[in-house]
């Protein structure tokens, strides 16, 4: 980009930002529609199909409904933070996308424009830094609502996000070691055109750990304890209504989209697909590479919805045990194994096989230890379980 005139740089950046932000917003609408339709399909019912063809205009109707609802601020809330919290969740979700390369370069009017808003040399650290800020929106919204369900939801959510953030950060270190760069564009370029060259095969356990941690970070099922309806009404956004609630909602979907895009970049080869990204002239190949990236992200997002209707919710202690006793050791092992085998052999194949074997061994050891050290279940006494006549008398 060094030889590009400043004006072209600024103009192309503005155009890219406008397009990407709008794509994100449209993506949120598409996700809301597809989530409802796909869940309908998976549960053998119709889902919303009245507004527009196939119910496609349903998200717009929902948006209008949110806009025209009364913007209610309850009396008992801490007003400045209550108003600020949804924005503090939405803004990190929006600005993470700045470093995601959504395609190869495109040549317009003689200038080669990379399809990425900013290629900074610490790209993946930027993503981690900004996503780690999302937790403030949840915590502050929960606290400012001055409601016990909100606070419990917020505390659950923040504990969960802090725990899984570690796995999220450690799982990518293997990828960074083999790429020896933090820039997301370099990571995408380094992966070849064919699926067996992509990082998810070389770092398969890390890929699974990263994806799982991302589900937890975005508060999606099976990790949506922060808004477990049966226990906490709606969790941290119980007291929110109209557009403020919609902002929480949008941030959740935006996090999913950006998370999927980052995963595609890190592990699924970015915009590469059997060399298809090089077909056509300088303009078409750029557009095709963007299309490939788009389709990959969309497939990943479909898996989000698929998982939601397949897996039941974890219990809270299960969630913490899973995060700390399984995911974290797997991520740590992948660092050690990747580094050692890469230095010793320099072969991606050996690293890939070694990673899977090591992860299998670690999970077996942890599972074995857990089974052996399991405390005996406390015997439930009959008096705890049954309501005796004398207990009824006491209540009366």
């Amino acid at each position: 980009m060094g030889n590009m005139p400043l004006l072209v740089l600024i103009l192309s950046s503005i155009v890219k930002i406008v397009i990407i932000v709008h794509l994100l917003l449209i993506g949120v609408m598409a996700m809301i529609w597809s989530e409802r339709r796909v869940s309908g399909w998976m549960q053998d019912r119709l889902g919303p199909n009245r507004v527009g063809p196939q119910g496609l205009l349903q998200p717009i109707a929902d948006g209008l409904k949110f806009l025209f609802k009364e913007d209610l601020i309850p009396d008992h809330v801490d007003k400045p933070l209550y108003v600020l919290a949804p924005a503090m969740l939405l803004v990190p979700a929006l600005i993470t996308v700045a470093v995601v390369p959504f395609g190869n370069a495109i040549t317009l009017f003689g200038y080669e424009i990379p399809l990425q808003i900013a290629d900074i040399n610490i790209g993946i650290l930027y993503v981690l830094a900004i996503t780690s800020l999302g937790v403030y929106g949840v915590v502050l919204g929960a606290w400012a609502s001055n409601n016990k369900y909100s606070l419990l939801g917020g505390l659950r959510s923040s504990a969960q996000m802090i725990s899984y953030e570690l796995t999220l950060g450690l799982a990518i270190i293997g990828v960074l070691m083999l790429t020896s760069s933090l820039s997301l564009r370099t990571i995408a370029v380094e992966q070849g055109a064919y699926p067996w060259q992509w990082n998810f095969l070389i770092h398969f356990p890390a890929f699974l750990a990263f994806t799982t941690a991302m589900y937890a970070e975005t508060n999606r099922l099976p990790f949506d304890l922060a808004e477990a309806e049966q226990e906490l009404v709606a969790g941290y956004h119980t007291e929110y209504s109209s557009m403020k609630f919609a902002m929480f909602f949008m941030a959740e979907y935006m996090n999913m989209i950006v998370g999927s895009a980052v995963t595609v970049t890190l592990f699924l080869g970015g915009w590469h697909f059997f060399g298809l990204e090089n077909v056509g002239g300088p303009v078409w190949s750029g557009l095709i590479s963007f299309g490939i990236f788009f389709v990959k992200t969309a497939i990943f997002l479909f898996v989000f919805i698929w998982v939601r209707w397949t897996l039941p919710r974890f219990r809270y202690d299960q969630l913490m045990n899973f995060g700390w006793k399984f995911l974290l050791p797997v991520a740590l092992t992948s660092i050690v194994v990747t580094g050692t085998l890469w230095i010793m052999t320099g072969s991606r194949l050996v690293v890939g096989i070694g990673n899977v074997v090591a992860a299998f061994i670690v999970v077996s050891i942890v599972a074995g230890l857990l089974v052996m050290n399991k405390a005996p279940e406390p015997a439930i006494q009959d008096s705890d379980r049954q309501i005796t006549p004398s207990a009824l008398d006491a209540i009366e």
Partner: protein
Amino acid sequence: MNPEQILFILFGAVSLIGAIAVISFRHPIYSALALIITFFAQAGLFVLLGAHFVAAVQVIVYAGAIMVLFLFVIMLLNLGTLSAKGAIAGKLKGFAIILGILFAAEGIYIAVNALNDTAVASAQPATESVTTTTYDIGELLFTKYLLPFEVTSLILLAALIGVIVLVKRDSQEEN
């Protein structure tokens, strides 16, 4: 003024305002938030110095992790609004005055030097093209600063084990 100077003044001002707000707010949650803003402005200053890695780590570690735990503790303890004259202020008054005088002396020393353009002022990295990459930091950590690096990791390990021992003992006593 070039853009970098404008950004420096902006980040510096935000950092100072945030720092003052930390001790001015009556409510601990607002103080914690002001501290986060200060950390952010400092990350911006690091970026201006070309230390991108340090800026990212500043946000990840301080704004992203440590301050979340701070907020956690404040919320769980449910600390109310501090009264106009806290009980702590009286006890630590002498200490605060000494520290304040030291800090003021330091500030005046730097300001005087900067005005006279002597060594202290020109010691700051004046070349704008210097960008500390992650590669440079890694290389320095494993060559020149290997001993401090390893000592730090040992201290962290000791802290980690300490935490586990403390928590374990509590849960055993309960049983």
